[in-house]
């Protein structure tokens, strides 16, 4: 087990290296560089000034040299500076991370709180009207563009009924508001983004929970528990639930990168300055340092999440021991 874990961890290094090479290459294949992207709007900029800017960004070097320079700094956790404003990439990430984290952690909490009971109930009452309703909800939740749902909610809650703010993280003018009112203002701004982010997860997770539960309820030890004369509640909530919850660890591990990453489209709809927006802007202004600074940790977390999911699964379920 320990040997296996170490091997998996070591294997992550070459894969992560591959990720950096691939994403660096793709980004540099795009025509134009940071200097061109910045000067796009000033046609009068002389070729000389452009050259100076290119030199400043190191864009006059061949791609592989730029990559090695970048990698040398990156392994010492120096993410470099953004081309756009010269600020440290680390600072830019750190000011956006809390925003994305708040929204995603809240929506994960909503998902867990709702999906587990829904999953249990639709499994114990299979083919009931509740089960049928959640089945339909699951498929609809999977099949719609989530930004469309966001638009509809913005229209109804924001425009028609004026109940909730539709964009941003707080009102423009907070003067004259008490501490409590300010908090409520922020909370109101979070309702729609958190809800919309939760819908997709809720659909998938409740289905997953239902199937786990159905699987577990068919096991021999559940029949034994029933045969012993235990009450149905003890059977379901004590014997079955514990076993059905184990695979949930896997899902939590796999949702790790999503929590940090943030959704580009969702942040665009609600005007939230989060991680997704940062990467989106960086890719289009060829701000390689920023884009790589967001991307590489996200990719690393994806692999770490996969790894933790496997390990956690093996730790909680003695039947699953990895080779």
């Amino acid at each position: 087990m320990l040997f296996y874990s170490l091997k998996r961890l070591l294997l992550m290094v070459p894969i992560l290296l591959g990720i950096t090479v691939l994403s660096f290459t793709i980004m540099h294949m795009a025509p134009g560089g940071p200097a061109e992207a910045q000067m796009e709007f000033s046609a009068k900029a002389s070729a000389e000034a452009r050259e100076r800017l290119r030199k400043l960004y190191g864009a006059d070097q061949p791609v592989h040299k730029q990559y090695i320079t970048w990698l040398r700094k990156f392994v010492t956790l120096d993410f470099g500076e953004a081309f756009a404003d010269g600020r440290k990439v680390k600072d830019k990430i750190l000011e956006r991370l809390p925003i994305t984290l708040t929204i995603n952690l809240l929506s994960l909490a909503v998902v867990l709180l709702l999906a587990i009971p829904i999953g249990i109930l639709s499994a114990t009452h299979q083919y009931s009207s509740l089960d049928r309703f959640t089945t339909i909800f699951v498929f609809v939740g999977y099949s719609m563009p989530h930004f469309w749902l966001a638009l509809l909610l913005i229209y109804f809650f924001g425009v028609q009924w004026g109940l909730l703010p539709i964009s941003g993280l707080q009102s423009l003018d907070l003067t004259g508001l008490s501490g409590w009112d300010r908090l409520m203002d922020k909370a109101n701004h979070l309702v729609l983004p958190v809800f919309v982010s939760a819908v997709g997860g809720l659909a998938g997770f409740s289905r997953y929970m239902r199937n786990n539960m159905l699987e577990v309820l068919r096991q021999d030890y559940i029949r034994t528990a029933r045969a012993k004369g235990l009450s149905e509640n003890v059977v379901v909530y004590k014997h079955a639930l514990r076993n059905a919850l184990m695979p949930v660890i896997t899902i939590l591990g796999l949702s790790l990168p999503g929590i940090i990453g943030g959704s580009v489209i969702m942040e665009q709809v609600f005007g939230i300055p989060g991680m997704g927006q940062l990467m989106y802007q960086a890719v289009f202004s060829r701000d390689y340092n920023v884009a790589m600074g967001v991307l590489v940790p996200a990719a690393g977390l994806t692999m770490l999440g996969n790894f933790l999911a496997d390990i956690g699964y093996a730790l909680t379920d003695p039947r699953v021991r990895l080779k």
Partner: protein
Amino acid sequence: MPNNITLTTTETFRTFRRNWLSVIGGLLVLAVFVVAVLAPWISPHDPSKIDVKHILVGPTVEHPFGTDELGRDVLARMIYGARISLEVGFVAIGIATLIGILVGAIAGFYGGYIDSAFMRFVDIMLSIPTIFLVLAVIAILEPNIMNIMIVIGLTSWMEPARLVRAEFIAIKEREYVTAARALGATDFRIIFKHILPNGLSPILVSATMGIGGAILVESGLSFLGLGVQPPTPSWGSLLSSGKDNIEIAWWLSAFPGLAILITVLGYNLLGEGIRDALDPRQRE
């Protein structure tokens, strides 16, 4: 033997029909397909006819889904949009499935270092957030229909590849493969003639659901302004231009989104139905 095969096919079809959700899925898919094919005959208006006298009119008998900011009929644009959206879905998933089959077949059939190398590349692709790959590639290529399909295809072949690989690993040890090899069949023949046809069912399911997924990705890209470009009416681009007028003209966003929902729902239900019908282990 042939008799046996017909029996299982009938049984498969029966299982499929028993499941009312998958029948609904199949009907939705069929309905959208018919609309797309018959677009010129059933469209109530010319989708690109500008009518400045009727700008942003809400749903009426004349224009059931209203008109847009140039007075064009939304229903007509949606009917023609079905063609674009389905085209994107089918071609993108066609590309993804082809790449997936090639990569998965080679990795699963040959195993060893080839397998490790291919699968590590799949790991790399899966660890990079899809949206980054798509954004970066769109920054290289112009956002037009052809490139959108290529980009979606290039970023969604990993799941089919894994499925095909798993099938190949399971099937290549069967007796009939050994028999074919003993008869001197080439690798090419064994891969495409003996193994692939027997391992196609999981790919069929993933491709069916993938079409819905690709339509969703296209709508997301269009929403960011990187998808099918106006004035070409894909559902994504209709929805995207609808968002600018969401406060005064809800119908511009509501109906195209509904069309996407119904279509993707159709493919997902159909895919699930095919899975249940083909895989007896999942039957309850």
